[in-house]
Every structure is written in C-alpha cells, then in structure tokens.
C-alpha cells in the first residue's frame, strides 16, 4: 500500500500515466540530519570517508580513467574505494566527463536512487563549463545546475593521480563535515527540478526516483 501524503508536500509526478502514478512514490526527498552528538557524527563521517563506494556508471570519456584507478598501479582500494554495481549500494557518483542530455536523465535517476549520504565528483572540464563541447547541441554546460557537485577535478582528461588526489580531498571534506551536496539538492529541490526539466523534454519518470 502506497502511503498517500498531504497534497502540500507531495510531488506532482506529471510525467507519469495514471497507472504509473500508483506504482511510484510521490514523497519529497528529506534532508539528512546529523547525529545530535558531534563526536558521533564525526565518527560516522570518518567511517564514510574511508568506505567510498563508487557507482559503476561510466557517464563519459572520463570513465576510462576509473579502470587504472581500480587496478594494480593506482589501487584505489587503499583508500577504501570500491566499485558497486547498483546505485542503492554506492555513495560516490563520479561524473566521468561530458554529460549529454540523454545521459543526464540516467544520471538524475541513478543519483536520486543512491542512499544518502552521497557525494558527487565531477571529473574533467566538461561538467564545469562545457569544455570542448561548449557549443554542442546535446551536452550540458554547467553540470551543477542539475545535480549538486561536491568536488571538481578539472583537466582533459585528468590522470588517475589527480583522481587519487581528488578522492583524498573528498575524504578530508567528508571528515570535516563539509560535503552537503545531497542536502543542497533537497533544500533547492524545485530549482534543480526546474533546471532538469528545462533540458529534458521527455520527462517520463517520477519527479523523485526513490
């Protein structure tokens, strides 16, 4: 049985048919609330920072850098980084370079399905300002308008060394409790959703993919 919420705090799910409306939740996402005791929250952050599980979703050419990152030479397992096959099990989403509109739809879907706390690394110059695809008809120029980004790694392409440095930087940010991308997404949910729907014209999924 789907829990029906009051109309003021539910999502419209206008992209779904009447039949599909019954199948998907229309609840809004909730912000993450830290533990009331700071030491406990710090301990949780320390644990999170040392078990970063990356979603195995190669969204652009940068995904090719994740193979050497995981294998013998750079061995990201040293930092507690592991690849996971499904969004439900991962906590880090690495946007590997350019995001076309078709991919952006899948990125949004995967990102929203990830369990919090979740972090996004934007790899390469393309998610920052479009890079060499700045005038393309099909790649977004400013990725942070659609998904909150916690850490940028610029370059075209960044080498795995930079990726390792980025992961260490992300760990420091998490330990300091400064990775609040997922909360920003919840707080500015309508703004992000409006931006997403501006570029994705065939919106045929729920407004929030639980």
């Amino acid at each position, binding site marked *: 049985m789907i829990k029906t919420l009051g109309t003021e705090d539910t999502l419209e799910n206008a992209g779904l048919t009447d039949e599909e409306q019954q199948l998907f939740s229309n609840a809004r996402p909730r912000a993450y609330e830290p533990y009331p005791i700071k030491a406990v929250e710090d301990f949780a952050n320390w644990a999170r920072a040392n078990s970063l599980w990356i979603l195995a979703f190669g969204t652009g050419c940068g995904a090719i850098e994740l193979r050497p990152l995981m294998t013998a030479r750079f061995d990201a397992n040293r930092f507690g980084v592991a690849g996971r096959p499904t969004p439900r099990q991962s906590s880090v989403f690495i946007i590997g370079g350019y995001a*076309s*509109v*078709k991919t952006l*739809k899948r990125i949004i879907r995967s990102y929203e399905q990830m369990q919090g706390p979740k972090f996004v690394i934007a790899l390469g110059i393309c998610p*920052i*300002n*479009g890079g060499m695809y*700045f*005038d*393309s*008809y*099909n*790649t*977004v*120029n*400013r990725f942070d*308008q659609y998904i909150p980004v916690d850490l940028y790694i610029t370059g075209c392409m960044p080498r795995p060394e930079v990726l390792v440095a980025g992961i260490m930087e992300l760990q420091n940010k998490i330990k300091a409790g400064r990775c609040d991308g997922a909360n920003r997404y919840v707080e500015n949910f309508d703004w992000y959703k409006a931006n997403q729907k*501006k*570029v*994705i*014209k*065939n*919106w045929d999924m729920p407004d929030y993919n639980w």
Partner: protein
Amino acid sequence: MNELLERLQRHFDVNNINVLKPGMTTLKIGKDSAEILIRELRDREGYTHLNFITCIDYIEDGIFTLVYMLHNYDSKHTLGVHVDIDREGEEMTSIHTLWAQAWTYQRELREMYGINFPGSPRLDEDFCLEGWDQIPPMRREFDTRAFSEERFGHREGRHSEVPRVHMKMELYPKRGGDEE
C-alpha cells in the same frame, strides 16, 4: 577493378568515378537505381559488407549526398556509392532488407538530418536525442552554438582563445602578435 567498373557502367548510369587510393573507389549514381546497384554489388560482385551509411550536407547546392560504403572481403576493396537526394524532398529507398544493420544507420540519419526512409523499422523512435523539439541538429542551417547558449547557458568567466591568435601572442609578445 576496371572490369568491375566497366561492367557497372554498362548496366547502370554511374558517373563521377573517383579512385581515392588503391583499394578505395567512389562512384555516383542516381537516386532511383541506387538500391538496385547496391543489391547487385552485394549479390553478384562480392561487396557483402556494409561499412556504414552516412550523409553529407551540401547546403549551397541544396542536396544531401548519402554515402553507402561497401567492402569486398575477397578483393579487399572498398566501394563508396554516392547518391544525391534533394534536401527538401528528403526520401530514400531503405536498404534494411539487404543488411539488417542498415536500419540503425537510417534511424540515425532520420534523427540527425530528417531524411525519410519509408519502411525502415523503428524509424521515428528516439535514438540519440530524446524529446528533441528543434530541426534536426546535423543540418547545417541549425545553429548549434546559439541553441547551446539558449538551452544550456554558460558559466561566467569562461573565455575562448583562437589558437592561431593566441600562439602568435605567445611567440611575438613584443610585436603585439605581429609575425613580420
């Protein structure tokens, strides 16, 4: 090779035969007999492999040139069949009955150039572009930069250099980038 071209010239109205390099030749044929020629090449002449189908937009002449690239594994020869079609009347015989993979190319051409291939499977489904609401983007009258600025916006602070001008400024800074 020459025998093949002579044979083709006897039976078809092929022209603009152009030997690009050893092992690669292009020729041009009218729209109506193109499918028969390609079928003949596949069934009788050993061009059993379809490398790709692509399209060139000659906006100045008002035509699209479709390129069917065929390969013969026995003679290791590649033959490009060029077909001019009207830019506005855009319609071409589908060859998905000859090679099943051709419908993927035709779907792409439909989406990127708006060329119609009657009878080709799944032609009007979205392929790379989902929910596209503009004119097909690979047509040259489509201004991709203006579209990108309007739809995706730009981050403040980005600036682009023309590589030629930039390198001249790097090399001859005292002369203000003047080469002389």
